[in-house]
């Protein structure tokens, strides 16, 4: 059974809808900027891709907003947009035949930070009774299930930076196998709380300036946040109801490095890419674009390039490979979802989003990285890579709607 993407939603530092996100991506207008001063004053790095002027009351009544950490609010807003975009109502998706699978790396860090500050800092001896429901990383998926009456399989997957890649791949397999008639898949992350940012600072992988994937000058990642969701359903069902088809969700590949908690490997990512190709029943030569994991760290980018060369051989020279993290930053558990939406839109619109902030080629990253400007190019099929700390990899494969 073939599976189609029929709805997209995104809430990002570069645009509050999938359409705005896409326009910013192809215009190279990134969301990286100064972190809000009260946080930045206590950090050794000044920049992030942070959602600005977030107003939950524009999306939720006050009582509902109280129940949701920002990450769950982002998930809900992106999920609603994807469902509306797919032309689906609560009447259509309610019941057991719909699944919701969301990725999240760290759960409700913003709420946890505030409440633990009450406890350890202010010594109040108590935390807010909604702390647990706000922290739990399934909160976004649960909210969407309640709001839309979805009573099928609903859960969240947490595999650090590959969370939403794994969630979306799992959703594909669920729809393809007929377990459900449709799935809402994606991920959300709210990364800007002091404790969490300090933990990233201690890892010494955050860039002091900006995110320059594949450049010789790259100095690390830039943290991002937001959410993205897609509605996926069988191609035939989508056609039957006259839905807009953005792309075919053709395959997913997963693997574990079984190697090191933080150091990337070539073998694990290469295996995930070849598994995705096999799942999509495609040869490497049929891929025209890869939305890379491309964090902008020294180690990731060089290793990912080696993995791409290992799988694609001579065809690697003909591939376009960009990292949109150069614009939306590393949205951690939401990264795979943001990048899947970017990949699906690239196939749908015939434009490849660029790797921004690119300076000097690095011999260790010898690929066509679509430097600094989008490119009008219709490719037939594309991969979206997500590789996590802990050595867990998820690669998604999409095909152009023109191929259907």
């Amino acid at each position: 059974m073939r599976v189609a993407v029929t709805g997209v939603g995104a809430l990002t530092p570069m645009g509050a809808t999938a359409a705005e996100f896409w326009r910013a991506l192809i215009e190279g207008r990134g969301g990286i900027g100064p972190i809000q001063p009260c946080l930045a004053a206590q950090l050794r790095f000044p920049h992030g891709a942070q959602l600005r002027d977030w107003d939950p009351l524009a999306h939720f009544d006050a009582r509902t907003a109280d129940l949701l950490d920002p990450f769950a609010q982002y998930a809900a807003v992106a999920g609603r947009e994807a469902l509306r975009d797919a032309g689906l109502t609560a009447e259509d998706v309610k019941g057991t035949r719909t699944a919701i699978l969301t990725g999240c790396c760290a759960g409700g860090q913003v709420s946890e930070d505030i409440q633990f500050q009450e406890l350890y800092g202010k010594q109040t001896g108590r935390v807010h009774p909604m702390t647990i429901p706000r922290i739990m990383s399934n909160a976004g998926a649960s909210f969407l299930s309640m709001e839309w009456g979805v009573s099928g399989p609903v859960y969240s997957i947490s595999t650090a930076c590959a969370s939403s890649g794994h969630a979306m791949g799992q959703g594909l397999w669920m729809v393809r196998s007929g377990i459900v008639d449709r799935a809402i898949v994606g991920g959300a992350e709210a990364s800007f709380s002091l404790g969490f940012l300090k933990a990233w600072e201690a890892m010494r992988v955050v860039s002091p300036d900006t995110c320059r994937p594949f450049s010789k000058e790259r100095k690390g990642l830039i943290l991002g946040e937001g959410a993205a969701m897609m509605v996926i359903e069988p191609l035939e069902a989508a056609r039957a109801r006259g839905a807009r088809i953005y792309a075919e969700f053709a395959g997913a590949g997963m693997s574990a490095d079984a190697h090191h908690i933080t150091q990337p490997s070539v073998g694990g990512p290469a295996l995930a890419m070849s598994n995705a190709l096999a799942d999509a029943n495609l040869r490497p030569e049929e891929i025209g674009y890869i939305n890379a994991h491309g964090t902008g760290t020294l180690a990731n980018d060089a290793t990912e390039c080696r993995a791409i060369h290992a799988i694609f051989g001579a065809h690697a020279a003909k591939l376009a490979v960009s990292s949109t993290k150069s614009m939306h930053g590393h949205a951690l558990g939401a990264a795979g979802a943001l990048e899947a939406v970017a990949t699906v839109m690239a196939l749908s619109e015939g434009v490849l989003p660029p790797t921004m902030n690119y300076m000097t080629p690095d011999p260790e990253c010898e690929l066509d990285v679509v430097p600094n400007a989008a490119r009008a190019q219709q490719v037939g099929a594309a991969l979206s890579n997500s590789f996590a700390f802990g050595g867990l990899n998820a690669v998604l494969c999409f095909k152009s709607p023109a191929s259907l």
Partner: protein
Amino acid sequence: MTEEFTQKLLQCIAATLHKPVETYRLDASFEELGIDSLDGINILFALENEFGIQIPDDAARNVKNLGEMAQGVWKLVEAKGAPA
């Protein structure tokens, strides 16, 4: 660098990596000592605590062996005005 400082530094590294202090020599590269990037950030964190300093990422990134690391830490300790 004083001998006292060097000993304190090596002991801090050894304690961080749960190895005997004799394991570590200033002239050995991180590779020879089996120190990977994850060990590296743990060591930097421990040294910042031990000596009450802040080691910038840029400085840390260019260091290739314990000798260079000791020199860098010594400079920061001296700059603080309270040599170990």
